[in-house]
């Protein structure tokens, strides 16, 4: 099926492709951002949550009398109070073999992870609210915690009785002659990997303010969400607030990375509290809560094996990906998306592997729910695929570039065994380009020379293909549900300036700049005349969320379609004023010009003024509406690709790993703004280095989270940010606006594999091969010491 909102007009790139400075930077970098905590409403109350101290326990009693009696405490709610309004939020993944869970807004009867909200105290200040929390007494009768996903799937106690066998997700497919591939294999390369439990760790934690006016039934909800329209939908669906009186507002947001692309119990509770207490209620999460209770990410155990023929070509793959899902599905992404994508999408990657045996499963465990984090489903899958490629290179005594060239797809369009069609890509060129950038022979010489001095460097390679521009077509191509589209509004005013509103919220990605570049090229107006507003309020537009590397593609498409309506009117008016054929009019450098007739032009400002104030200039049947709102959803799935090569050094004294340099190749089609693309690469890669070397959420044997501060949960800081050399390949998409593709997740998707491979290369003389991330200094030191 094809719909008009999938058609994107053509555009001539002028501003597109330029290194335009980010318009938000002066404001944000000088501390003038207005984040959620900066918003203070008159009469606001503060909420603080009593959170479960037990991983799994029956609640036998909750005593709130003392807290309620505390001066300054306005209300204390327990699970029973919340359940009067909402039984809970339902989560599942729309794939075969997924079983739904219902997450209560506040736990009733049973708690299922440490940090689960049990009660909420609302008080005149956050200080008093915390004092009140200390006075709430919860009696727990311990239940056995379920902490190991693979043993959980084999039976034993349940983590969540909605899933008695702990199976939250189980399914898979066998495609092609897998048995034949493995029977005939010259070599089988296999390993079991553990990809550690991560927090997206946005610098601004979550936060919510709810304000309700009973006279109008109007609810306003501020939340730093990546999916405000979805939140708004849930306010009506779960809580019954009238849709026409709900507004979700998104202030400046200090990072989301997928963590803020969920619906959380706190977001559903605060509107209820604000309504029942008739006061605005605010909750600003602290760091301990964020690490403990905002969704965790990425953790999986993965068995994977590749069959190779005697020419070192991969002929088959077997994978079993097991997610350690936590106690509930966190809507909308659920604990299923990680292992499902790892098993069903990533094992083939950029390689022509005809046979695949794919198994996905997610276990409910008594831990914080797993959710989306940048590169969701792709990071762990890319890690295991690319790491085994390097293992295979060592086994076949081939370079990491050569082993990949043996299997890489060279002809497009390409359909993989899963049935996903890739229209175009520079998969082989990526490998070639990285080899050139690294200067592989020179690296080998330096590695040997340093080894002789007792210094150990290694080179790691990782190449990827990434689904981008998350869309309805992308969902269908992957047998996933989900209908997506976003709108944009473009409005030109009498002096020729343009205001653009998009359906996406922005968390630092520079959408206001990139979208202005698209509009500038469509309407021929200078960037200074364009203001782009992200989805600061759901009053304007519709958006499916800032997720899945979709911002530039989807907002870009909607902006271009809406701009084109204005453009068509300006062209018609200019043609009438200049007595020319509309087909000969172009809008460029602030003017409408007649192609081939030098000197025949009219400024865009004069055109805009004429639309508003000079009816005599109008052509027949002219409609002066200089405002258009249109939707966009690409007709086909879009894939970007690229790769990273990293050089690391391991310290023989400590086992510390230092990334010396990162070489990145990125092909996201037409690049709107190289500075912004490179910023996304750097940020994502550094997050990937963090995932590979530092970050680890640790539970002890009783299910207590040990890493509850940033002293223990180590995130990469500036000194972990290595120098980069970045090369752009541009293989435009044949059907997106201007050929652009999304790339926001690519750095984190592929960087951990490059780090792991580089460390294994540095350790290659020891015989140790590591397959788990994060790599600990202790593992490295042990390898070096033999």
């Amino acid at each position, binding site marked *: 099926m094809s719909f008009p909102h999938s058609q994107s007009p053509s555009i001539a790139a002028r501003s597109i492709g330029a290194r335009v400075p980010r318009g938000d930077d002066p404001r944000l970098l000088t501390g003038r951002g207005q984040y959620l905590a900066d918003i203070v409403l008159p009469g606001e109350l503060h909420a603080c949550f009593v959170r479960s101290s037990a991983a799994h326990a029956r609640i036998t009693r909750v005593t709130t009398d003392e807290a309620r009696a505390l001066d300054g405490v306005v209300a204390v709610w327990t699970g029973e109070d919340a359940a009067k309004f909402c039984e809970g939020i339902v989560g599942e993944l729309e794939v075969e073999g997924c079983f739904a869970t219902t997450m209560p807004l506040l736990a009733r009867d049973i708690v299922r992870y440490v940090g689960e909200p049990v009660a909420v105290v609302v008080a005149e200040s*956050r*200080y008093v609210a*915390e*004092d009140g929390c*200390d006075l709430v007494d919860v009696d727990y009768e311990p239940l056995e915690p379920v902490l190991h996903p693979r043993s959980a799937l084999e039976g034993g106690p349940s983590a969540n009785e909605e899933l008695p066998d702990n199976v939250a997700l189980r399914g898979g497919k066998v495609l092609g002659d897998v048995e034949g591939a493995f029977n005939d294999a010259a070599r089988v390369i296999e390993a079991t990997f553990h990809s550690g439990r991560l927090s997206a760790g946005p610098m601004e934690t979550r936060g919510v303010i709810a304000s309700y006016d009973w006279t109008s039934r109007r609810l306003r909800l501020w939340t730093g969400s990546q999916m405000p329209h979805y939140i708004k939908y849930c306010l009506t669906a779960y809580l019954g607030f009238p849709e026409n009186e709900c507004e979700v507002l998104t202030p400046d947001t200090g990072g989301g990375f997928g963590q803020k692309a969920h619906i959380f119990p706190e977001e559903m509770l605060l509107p209820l509290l604000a309504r029942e207490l008739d006061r605005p209620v605010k909750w600003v999460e*602290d*760091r*301990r809560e964020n690490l403990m209770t905002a969704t965790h990410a990425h953790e999986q155990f993965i068995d994977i094996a590749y069959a190779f023929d005697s020419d070192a070509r991969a002929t088959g793959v077997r994978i079993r990906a097991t997610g350690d899902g936590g106690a509930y599905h966190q809507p909308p992404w659920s604990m299923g998306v990680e292992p499902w994508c790892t098993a069903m999408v990533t094992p083939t990657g950029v390689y022509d592997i005809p046979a695949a045996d794919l198994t996905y499963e997610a276990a409910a465990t008594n831990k914080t729910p797993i959710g989306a984090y940048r590169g969701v489903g792709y990071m762990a899958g890319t890690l295991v695929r690319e790491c085994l490629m390097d293992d295979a290179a060592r086994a076949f005594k081939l370079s990491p570039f050569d082993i990949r060239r043996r299997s890489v797809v060279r002809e497009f369009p390409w359909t993989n065994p899963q049935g996903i069609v890739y229209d175009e890509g520079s998969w082989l060129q990526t490998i070639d380009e990285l080899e050139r950038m690294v200067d592989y022979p020179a690296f080998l010489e330096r590695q040997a020379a340093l080894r002789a001095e007792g210094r150990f460097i290694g080179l790691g390679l990782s190449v990827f293909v990434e689904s981008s521009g998350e869309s309805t077509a992308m969902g269908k191509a992957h047998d996933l549900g989900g209908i997506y589209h976003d709108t944009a509004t473009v409005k030109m005013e009498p002096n020729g300036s343009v205001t653009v509103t998009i359906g996406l919220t922005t968390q630092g990605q520079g959408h206001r700049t990139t979208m202005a570049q698209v509009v500038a090229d469509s309407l021929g107006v200078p960037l200074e005349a364009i203001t782009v507003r992200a989805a600061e309020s759901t009053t304007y537009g519709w958006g499916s969320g800032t997720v899945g590397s979709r911002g530039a593609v989807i907002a870009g498409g909607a902006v271009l379609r809406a701009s084109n309506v204005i453009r068509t009117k300006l062209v018609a008016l200019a043609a009438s004023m200049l007595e020319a054929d509309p087909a000969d009019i172009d809008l460029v450098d602030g003017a409408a010009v007649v192609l081939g007739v030098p000197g025949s032009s009219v400024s865009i400002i004069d055109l805009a003024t004429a639309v508003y104030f000079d009816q005599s200039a109008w052509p027949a049947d002219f409609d002066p509406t200089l405002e258009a709102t249109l939707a966009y959803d690409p007709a086909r799935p879009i894939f970007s690709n690229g790769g990273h090569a990293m050089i690391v050094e391991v310290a023989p*004294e*400590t*086992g*510390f790993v230092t990334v010396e340099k990162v070489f990145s190749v990125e092909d996201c089609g037409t690049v709107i703004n190289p500075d912004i693309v490179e910023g996304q690469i750097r940020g994502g890669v550094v997050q990937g280095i963090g995932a590979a070397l*530092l970050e*680890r959420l*640790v539970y002890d044997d009783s299910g207590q989270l*040990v*890493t509850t*501060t940033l*002293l*223990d949960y*180590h995130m*990469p*800081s500036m*000194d*972990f940010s290595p120098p980069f050399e970045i090369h752009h390949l541009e293989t435009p998409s044949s059907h997106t606006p201007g050929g652009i593709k999304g790339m926001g997740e690519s750095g984190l998707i592929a960087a951990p594999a490059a780090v792991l491979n580089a460390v294994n290369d540095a350790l290659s003389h020891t015989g140790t091969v590591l397959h788990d991330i994060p790599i*600990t*200094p*202790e593992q490295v*030191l042990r390898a070096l*010491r033999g």
Partner: protein
Amino acid sequence: MKSPVFAYAAPNTVAEACSLLADDEDAKLLAGGQSLVPLLALRLAAPTTLVDLRLVPALTGITHDQGVLRLGAMTTHRSIERSPLVQDVAPAIAEAAALIAHPQVRTRGTIGGAVAHADAAAEWPAVLLAMDGHVEVTGTGGSRSISAGDLFMGPFMTSLEPDEVITSVSLPIDGREIWVDEHQRRHGDYGLSILAMTYQLSDGLITDVRLAVAGATGSVTRAPEAEAALEGRAPADSNDAITALAAELSYTSDIHGSADYRRDITTTLFQRALRAAGERSGQA
């Protein structure tokens, strides 16, 4: 992460501070707050009164007199790091200050606060032990001097009386070699292992060695067997001392490293110190 209720006082004299401490047994001194304030926010500490020393002028200043470097208790790590006097008479001390956390923390955190806090993974206690430093303290009953060896009683424990205030830290500057080194995973992290060593070098031999370790052990500690094994040896002749250091200390395990790992990297810190001693001995 908001602190519980507490009373706040900011006296102008040490005597006032002492009497405030004496009046309220759950009072706590605030001397920069870089450890205490996070503990308050996490509600791991709940003092009834905070006695802020920032307005006591007598507690700041750095002097060097008669072979003693005296650092007022409220001297910030950053001031020590950047002090031309310290850089001149004991550059290793300025460098040790720079190992502490990040500039923001060093700009508010103080040496007296850090010493009184006695964190097992902090730099100053190890430096004091290795240098045989002292703290001057004043209480309601008068003043006294406590040697580093008598001050540190265990993790977060000192021999200070509840009403006593550290007024200054004294470090002997007596020509002995000073070495302070640390393994941090990320710059500014608490040390996985911290090693401080002082010694005399004469005729290529190490004598009068004092060796202190923090970070890797449950509390800051001397290593007497390693010291004894090193006494009178050349830096290159130190295998016995290395073995002793690995054996005599009780290394800690946590998510950042096992006891075995901490033992291994403490050994490498010691080897670095000995290499440096060898180089100094070569230059002498």
